[in-house]
């Protein structure tokens, strides 16, 4: 059988994926008005009688619907420009920064086989956040950073004793347990921590965005510029040592960059979105690239596409944003992996 050119397969994959996203949302928007039940109709009538304010819920529409509109066959059109420009600009820019940094770091996380570390760090970060909640500190970022750094140093040392394989899963479990034990019986704190893990109700304030966006972009840039260094350390650490480099220090730098991305991303947008951006774009693009620069560029583009698709699905389907991005990414990953079986190399 003649081999299909790589770009044709990629194009087919992309079209199939976009088609599935639009099909899902179309199915949702063409639901009959019968699905609006009695209680909803009553609630809409009540809403009509009070002065209108901008909706903070999800999905957001251009104006509050009247009873007649709600009962009409069509769902009101979503004002995308309003959503992007006025309702969620900070959240979207922060998510894009997480996407860029996550896709770049995530590529090397997967290639260096450090995915388990990336999964454990958010749990460790949660211990710090829970500690901050318990001590009623305003700034949860500092204790989270402190605990993450301690864990990172311990992990780096455990690699030297060849104990990394069992230390990291232990960190994961410790984070899951200790974070919730620290705030047990504190209802609101437990709810906040759960929200951090699930990434539902994503909202980013100006202060968080002002720190997260530039730092994430700089971290992503540093990681990208050092791509030959990561390649060398993975392929020939002895050559690096003979040239006067210290592989353990470079490994520590990589883990530090990863921790910064996970910490800031988790603090701003929750664990789900950070992990989705770390793993899915890189895993989707890897079967299709021959060089690291192409993989990095492709990963960044994919992360932004996943964000756009997730945002679209979230607003049209009334789904939580982080999970919508993850769902879009998983769909693309599944198609990419399937299509990769048919490509020839």
């Amino acid at each position, binding site marked *: 059988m003649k081999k299909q050119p790589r770009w044709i397969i990629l194009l087919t994959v992309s079209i199939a994926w976009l088609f599935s996203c639009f099909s899902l949302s179309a199915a949702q928007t063409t639901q009959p008005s019968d699905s609006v039940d009695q209680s909803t109709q009553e609630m809409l009538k009540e809403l009509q009688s009070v002065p209108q304010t901008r909706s903070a819920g999800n999905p957001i529409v251009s104006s509050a619907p009247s009873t007649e509109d709600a009962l009409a066959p069509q769902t009101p059109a979503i004002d995308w420009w309003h959503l992007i420009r006025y309702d969620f600009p900070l959240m979207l820019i922060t998510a894009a920064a997480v996407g860029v940094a996550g896709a770049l770091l995530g590529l090397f996380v997967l290639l260096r086989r450090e995915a388990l570390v990336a999964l454990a760090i958010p749990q460790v970060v949660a211990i710090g956040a829970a500690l901050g909640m318990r001590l009623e500190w305003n700034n949860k970022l500092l204790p989270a950073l402190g605990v993450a750094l301690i864990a990172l140093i311990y992990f780096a040392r455990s690699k030297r004793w060849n104990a990394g394989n069992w230390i990291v899963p232990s960190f994961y479990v410790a984070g899951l347990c200790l974070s919730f034990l620290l705030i047990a019986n504190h209802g609101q704190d437990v709810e906040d921590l759960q929200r951090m893990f699930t990434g539902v109700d994503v909202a980013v304030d100006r202060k968080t965005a002002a720190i997260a966006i530039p730092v994430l972009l700089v971290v992503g840039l540093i990681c990208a510029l050092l*791509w*030959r260094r990561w390649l060398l350390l993975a392929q020939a650490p002895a*050559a*690096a040592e003979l040239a006067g480099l210290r592989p353990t220090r470079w490994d520590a730098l990589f883990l530090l960059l990863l921790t910064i991305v996970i910490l800031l991303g988790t603090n701003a947008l929750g664990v789900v979105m950070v992990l989705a951006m770390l793993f899915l774009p890189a895993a989707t693009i890897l079967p299709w690239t021959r060089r*690291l620069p192409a993989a990095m560029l492709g990963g960044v583009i994919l992360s932004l596409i996943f964000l756009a698709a997730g945002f679209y699905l979230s607003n049209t389907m009334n789904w939580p944003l982080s999970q919508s991005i993850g769902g879009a990414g998983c769909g693309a990953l599944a198609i990419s992996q399937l299509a990769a079986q048919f490509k020839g190399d």
Partner: protein
Amino acid sequence: MGDKLIEVKNAVFGYGGRPVVQVEHLELFRGQCLGIFGPNGSGKTTLVRGITGLLSPMAGQVKHELSVSTSDLRIGYLPQHRNLELHWPMTALDAASLAISARRIFGWIGIRSKDVLAMMDRLQISQFANRPFAALSGGQQQRVLLSGALAGDPTVLVLDEPTEGLDVRSTQELLDLLRQFIAEGLATMIISHEADDLVQVSREIAWLHPASDVGQASRVEIVTPQTLGEAILSAARRVV
């Protein structure tokens, strides 16, 4: 014989206070190939780390004669092609550029990629430059890595089991290439447990004899290729 590059006198190398290998006297000259032969676990890598200055001696001294600073002695390294992680997306040119990138700030190679390409051309593998490294055969991969190690213009080239996993023809091609560069003045240290390969290219061989007691250092004996060949042959006869 060319200039003396390295001299080791009464040195003991080891880790954490535990001696691994002891050397009475060893010298490396420009244009010399020193074979390092011994069974697994005898301390071959430790010896090379000690000779190259990566590991400080627990006793004795290691003298790098070329200049006062160790960094001026450029040590190239040819990794085992089988130890490379082939799931990384990289072309043959990327793999060949590893050695040069190690000595560049942030790993950027810039115009030095021309040197790598020129060396690939000399080793007649420039046609593979843009091919995925993983798609090349073992022999081609080893030549690609050798071109990269040589493009860095090393004073001493360390080769770690260079013929491991190669077929007879690829092994012979690689050894022929090495002989060419040694004749041009390159000092090399070849770590191998294949006595046949070392006998073909080395002038002297550092033969590591593991100590009979646990916790004692292996002893290094400097022998000629003929001596090693005869010793291996007589050992084989005893087994038969």
